[in-house]
């Protein structure tokens, strides 16, 4: 029964994988409808999985803090920063990046008592530095990670289609 269950799980995975691939490549009519339904179910499942992952993350780090395990200070930083972002979202702040940059510029202006002109020059420099950082190193790193994820997704998908992925049968 164990082998039959494993074979059945593999057959179901391959069948739905081929069906979705067919619908995405050029299926029409009912195939397209089934593909859309499967994709919507997948999106909902992924969203719930992400939520479970976040709750698990909080649980692990809270346990690390209460039991004073190795690196518990970093756990406080993680939970604190997550809480700040959630509170800001609840309060209606649309962009935490812009809010953080405004705070840095405000502190910079207040600290250097050089008048409005010096404050404006440093504000422009801060914006230029931020734009360069976002355009070059951050963008390059993000693109590299996204390319890696895309390739790994293709490889994993092919493994599922040929029945070599065992995560659902063991």
């Amino acid at each position, binding site marked *: 029964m164990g082998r039959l269950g494993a074979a059945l799980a593999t057959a179901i995975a391959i069948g739905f994988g081929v069906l979705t691939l067919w619908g995405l490549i050029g299926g029409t009519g009912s195939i397209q409808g089934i593909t859309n339904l499967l994709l919507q179910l997948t999106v909902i499942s992924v969203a719930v999985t992400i939520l479970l992952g976040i709750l698990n993350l909080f649980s*692990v780090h809270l346990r690390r803090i209460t039991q004073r395990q190795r690196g518990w200070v970093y756990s406080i930083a993680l939970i604190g920063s997550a809480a700040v972002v959630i509170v800001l979202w609840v309060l209606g702040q649309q962009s935490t990046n812009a809010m953080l940059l405004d705070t840095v510029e405000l502190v910079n202006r207040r600290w250097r008592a050089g008048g409005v002109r010096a404050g404006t020059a440093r504000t422009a420099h801060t914006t230029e530095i931020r734009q360069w950082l976002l355009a070059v190193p951050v963008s390059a790193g993000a693109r590299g*990670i*996204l*390319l*890696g*994820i895309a*390739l*790994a*997704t*293709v*490889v*994993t998908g092919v*493994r599922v289609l040929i029945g*070599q*992925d*065992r*995560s659902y049968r063991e």
Partner: protein
Amino acid sequence: MADQPLIGEELFLAGAYLGDSASQRASVVTLDFLRWLLILGLLIATANTIREPVGEALARLLGGG
């Protein structure tokens, strides 16, 4: 829980970290091969894009005009 953070594609290769099956190792090798193929494609596309400006600059440098 992993000691180091798993970023991007490492999430898909977590099975290869934990186990040692042939299919997991094949996935890692395939991913590396595809990544090198992509790098080669990017380099060829970049070389094709800068071919004309570089050629003109070299011509000006060597021809003096």
